């Protein structure tokens, strides 16, 4: 082969325009070019499946059967296995004298082979080899040229894998972490999810918040053992099952027991730690159960931080029949509850108690600061120069006093009505309304909200807003939607309106093209200056 054509071949392998091809096009193009450049009869790319420890044929020229038959070569066995195991080029001049795993090579009549490892950052991710039907000895230049092609392929495959993993990770995160934490007046949520390292392998850490129809609010934190898409999908299973059990009305103990039995019955590779908290606003009681999860941090209104003494049960999925006793505590207005996964506090070479103490200190300090979401404040306190060793999920729940103004945006679905009534009741109680006044205003506003929901029927992502304002001698509440006030069911709606008018002192309906605003006014016995 003459010198200029060698240079041309090098150029053909490093051609920048290759970067615009899809991975499939690039592989096929490079195999063609290398086969031509080395005047070889066959060119094959095998990629390493790390989990199973085998090389799998990925693309081929002149040996297309390899890919079609899904040829798999164990590491360290045969020709390609040897190239991968030794991570260096291997030449076989006479195939009849060598140990070969893949019978296709002999059937094809290949005589001589040259193989090089496909390397990413020094790690073998595959093997590329060319073959000749005639006896041939490959020289150093041939080896260098094939290695050049292998390096180009390594780059492309690594980039494609990264992109693919990222998009899977992103989709998983979007699906599995609540996209927006619910708006519940009197509570402020801030959440954080931080993947360790390059962020391409999502962990099984998660948090969740949701409100039951009777107004109770549930917080969940958990951590599935393992990382990657498998851990994330187990996390999704647990999250869904947990919500389903709670909606069915089971107690916290029962929910955890059911989850444990479910995971234990689903086979290996499914274990997790988790803790569930349930807040009853009316009593301020906070119930909790824990399946081997680290204790939540509670910062009280005076700024003192302590760990909640939830009696811990076994992690989920470890053994069936575990028990999860429920612990009762209180969650006063002005307190903050901090839920987290172990990645937040664990440092290699440090006892866990030191990490817990650092967190306690960070929580106490975060409560003194005002800037930014609470979860961010805690995280910034704990941040050090070390990269994260594990994923971190963090959820802070602050209990705030309800002010003279109430404002909330709700999904226009019937399921929100019960929670809305509880929230309005809580707000009105804080404004000094009597039991009868609370009932009347709540029911009137609920009727207006039911109408907003009915208007939005079938519309996707429709919302409506509810606002309340305490005035010196009364409360004024508005329900605003962006549909039209339609008397679709005169009988029912007529009754709804009649009920509203008989319960409160004023009902005003203002319907314009871009929506309806219902204003409800009620005088309160207790006056405010």
């Amino acid at each position, binding site marked *: 082969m003459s010198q200029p054509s060698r240079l041309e071949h090098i150029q053909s392998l490093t051609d920048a325009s290759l970067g615009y091809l899809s991975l499939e096009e690039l592989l096929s193009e490079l195999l063609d070019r290398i086969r031509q450049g080395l005047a070889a009869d066959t060119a094959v790319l095998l990629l390493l499946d790390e989990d199973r420890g085998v090389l799998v044929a990925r693309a081929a020229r002149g040996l297309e059967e390899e890919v079609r038959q899904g040829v798999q070569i164990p590491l360290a066995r045969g020709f390609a296995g040897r190239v991968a195991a030794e991570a260096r080029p291997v030449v076989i001049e006479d195939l009849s004298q060598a140990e070969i795993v893949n019978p296709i090579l002999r059937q094809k009549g290949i005589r001589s082979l040259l193989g090089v490892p496909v390397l990413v950052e020094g790690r073998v991710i595959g093997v590329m080899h060319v073959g000749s039907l005639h006896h041939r000895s490959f020289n150093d230049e041939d080896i260098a040229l094939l290695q050049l092609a292998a390096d180009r392929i390594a780059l492309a495959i690594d980039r494609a894998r990264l992109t693919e993993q990222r998009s899977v990770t992103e989709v998983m995160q979007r699906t599995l972490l609540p996209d927006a934490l619910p708006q519940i007046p009197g509570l402020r949520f801030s959440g954080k999810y931080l993947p360790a390292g390059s962020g391409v392998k999502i962990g099984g850490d998660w948090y969740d918040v949701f409100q039951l129809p009777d107004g109770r609010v549930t917080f969940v934190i958990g951590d599935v053992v393992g990382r990657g898409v498998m851990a994330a999908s187990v996390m999704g299973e647990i999250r869904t099952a947990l919500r389903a059990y709670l*909606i*069915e009305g089971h107690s916290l103990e029962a929910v955890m027991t059911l989850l444990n039995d479910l995971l234990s019955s689903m086979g290996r590779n499914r274990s997790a730690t988790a803790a569930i908290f349930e807040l009853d606003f009316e009593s301020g009681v906070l119930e909790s159960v824990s399946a081997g999860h680290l204790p939540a941090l509670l910062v009280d209104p005076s700024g003192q931080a302590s760990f909640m003494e939830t009696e811990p049960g076994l992690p989920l999925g470890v053994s069936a029949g575990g028990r999860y006793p429920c612990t009762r505590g209180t969650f006063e207005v002005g307190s903050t509850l901090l839920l987290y996964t172990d990645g937040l506090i664990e440092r290699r070479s440090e006892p866990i108690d030191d990490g817990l103490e650092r967190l306690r200190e960070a929580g106490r300090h975060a409560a003194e600061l005002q800037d930014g979401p609470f979860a961010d404040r805690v995280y910034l306190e704990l941040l050090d120069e070390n990269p994260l060793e594990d994923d971190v999920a963090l959820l802070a729940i602050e209990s705030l006093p309800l002010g003279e103004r109430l404002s909330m945006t709700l999904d226009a679905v*019937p399921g929100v009505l*019960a929670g809305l*009534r509880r929230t309005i009741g809580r707000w009105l109680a804080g404004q000094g309304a009597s039991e009868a006044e609370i*009932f009347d205003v709540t029911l009137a506003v609920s*009727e207006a909200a039911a109408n907003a929901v*009915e208007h939005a029927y079938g519309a996707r992502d429709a919302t409506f807003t509810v606002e309340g304002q305490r005035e010196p001698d009364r409360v004024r509440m508005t329900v605003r939607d962006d549909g039209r006030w339609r008397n679709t069911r005169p009988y029912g709606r007529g009754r709804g309106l009649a009920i509203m008018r008989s*319960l409160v002192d004023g009902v005003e309906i203002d319907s314009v093209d871009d929506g309806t605003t219902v204003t409800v006014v009620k005088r309160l016995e207790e006056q405010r200056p």
Partner: protein
Amino acid sequence: MSSLAVEHIDGVAIARLSVDIDASNAARVRGELSDCFQRSTDQVVLDLSTTAYLDSAGIDMLFRLSQRLRQRRALLLLVIPDGSQLSRLARIVGLGRAMPVHDTVDDALRSLSNPCGAGKPA
């Protein structure tokens, strides 16, 4: 979770509801009440003493169900404690004109064993 907890005493079904009835569940509660009638008895006592709210969708449902049952000579009785917020609402909308409303479950059961006591006016 079923919205209704049902028990039977002397051939009368007593259904206790502990959640609000509103647009989100009125149809389901109606279905569950209808099941009580089909399975057992011509008389169902619906105990609303632990129900906090009943909106117009819930009230409509009770009126319509009671009307249907009357045509079949079956009877729906409500238990709404005197002096509760719900009893005030029941008076406003006139629930008592369409079906018997009693102070307690015992009162409701007594009215069934004594045909003269057909429920107090509400």
